[in-house]
């Protein structure tokens, strides 16, 4: 009994005032909010650029465009995410005019978003190339332009194919958002490190952060599994349960 009382007591620091009228618990929730916001914003950036770049890579007969898209993918996936983050903060914001006034939050989302866009682009490309060429021919044969062929025939099927790897990517972006602590975004790891220093409650703080990351990733996973079920094509594929 005394043991459990002790465990309970050790968590009480969460209700302590940090010194500015904010409790550690409130700070943790706000940090969690930052983690989710960084991840969600980065995911939007990653999807937009990933889809465009991945599609451009599959256009045949456009040398310059596909070279540009290939270059994009290599640039953003060959450099470690932490290095990319520092480059946005310390190089681009210094050298590119006007970037100095851009908030750190936006820079962090750009770094994470562009990094992930390279990975999503590759998944989109693989998905597009997995479709039989007959589908493309059939789309052209009914009179679709290249744009319409992608819009109405190729991409809708590609998204269904790549939902499982896209699920992993969405969960990765939640986890990778933790690097943002390095540029002082007040997200979960940032909270954990500072709270650990101020209260010496390393065990509790990191356990709490771990649980919140896991919960967030699980929610993302369930949302994607729901989308996968919603987008299932009747009669087309043998579907496994849920996402991976």
């Amino acid at each position, binding site marked *: 009994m005394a043991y459990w009382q002790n465990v309970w007591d050790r968590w009480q620091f969460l209700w302590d005032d940090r010194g500015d009228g904010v409790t550690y618990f409130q700070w943790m929730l706000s940090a969690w909010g930052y983690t989710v916001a960084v991840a969600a914003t980065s995911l939007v950036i990653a999807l937009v650029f990933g889809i465009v770049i991945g599609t451009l890579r599959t256009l045949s007969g456009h040398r310059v465009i596909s070279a540009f898209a290939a270059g994009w993918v290599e640039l953003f996936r060959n450099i470690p995410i932490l290095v990319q983050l520092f480059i946005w903060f310390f190089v681009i914001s210094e050298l590119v005019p006007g970037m100095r006034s851009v908030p750190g939050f936006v820079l962090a989302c750009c770094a994470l978003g562009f990094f992930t866009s390279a990975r999503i682009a590759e998944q989109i490309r693989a998905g597009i190339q997995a479709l*039989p060429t*007959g*589908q493309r*021919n*059939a*789309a*052209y*044969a*009914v*009179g*679709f*332009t290249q744009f*319409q062929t992608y819009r*109405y*025939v190729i991409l*809708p*099927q590609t998204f*269904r194919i790549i939902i499982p790897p896209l699920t992993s990517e969405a969960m990765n972006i939640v986890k990778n958002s933790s690097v943002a602590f390095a540029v002082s975004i007040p997200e979960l790891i940032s909270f954990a490190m500072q709270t650990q220093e101020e209260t010496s409650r390393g065990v509790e703080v990191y356990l709490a952060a771990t649980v919140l990351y896991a919960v967030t990733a699980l929610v993302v996973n369930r949302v994607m599994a729901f989308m996968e079920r919603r987008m299932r*094509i*009747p*009669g*087309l*594929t043998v579907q496994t349960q849920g996402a991976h």
Partner: protein
Amino acid sequence: MIEMKSVSKWYGTTQVLNDCSVKINKGEVVVVCGPSGSGKSTLIKTINALEPIQKGEIWIDGVAVHDKATDLPKLRSRVGMVFQHFELFPHLSVTDNLIIAQIKVLGRRRDEAKKRGLQMLERVGLIDHQHKFPGQLSGGQQQRVAIARALSMDPIIMLFDEPTSALDPEMVGEVLDVMVGLASEGMTMMVVTHEMGFARKVSNRVIFMDVGGRILEDTTKDEFFGKIEDRQPRTREFLNKILQY
């Protein structure tokens, strides 16, 4: 209606079409046959520019297919095509397969497109399946929907690229029935097929191609099947083999 003049095509250094000239008049049904690798499918795909050509000219209803300036989507919307593997859009219902190009390409209103699409679905005998998805249909049914999809665009000619080759024997008949019906209504058709029964029954002309993409024969049906001894040696060999069983 369709005229190919001295069409040649290469994949790298391999010639797949060799100086092919074909003329198809309105209302004609032309069957193209020949051994695998003779370029039959390539030939039919050059007509709506799914396969580009390096030499020669192709004219459809006065429009130059080989001309880089030609609006290919517009041209293709007037040419119906049916593929060996059906190529329905699997993520769309049967009805949506029938109407999407009518709306997006021809600019028809949705209700108008649906009316036309369902008319064609009725015609191929599948009106009860309008809400299903392609994956829920048999091969023969999918191919009939594919024919209905092409017909919904009110094409001036129908191209068939081995429409029955991927089907179970039992389903070949239902697809051929639809095609025979079309032919009897005066639809202009070019059909790549091994179904010699179909060629005998409804075709006006038979084209025989041999390896290397050369057209060896282009004769009337009666001549093609009537006097086998008058055919070229290669054609005789082919016919003897496939008519043996």
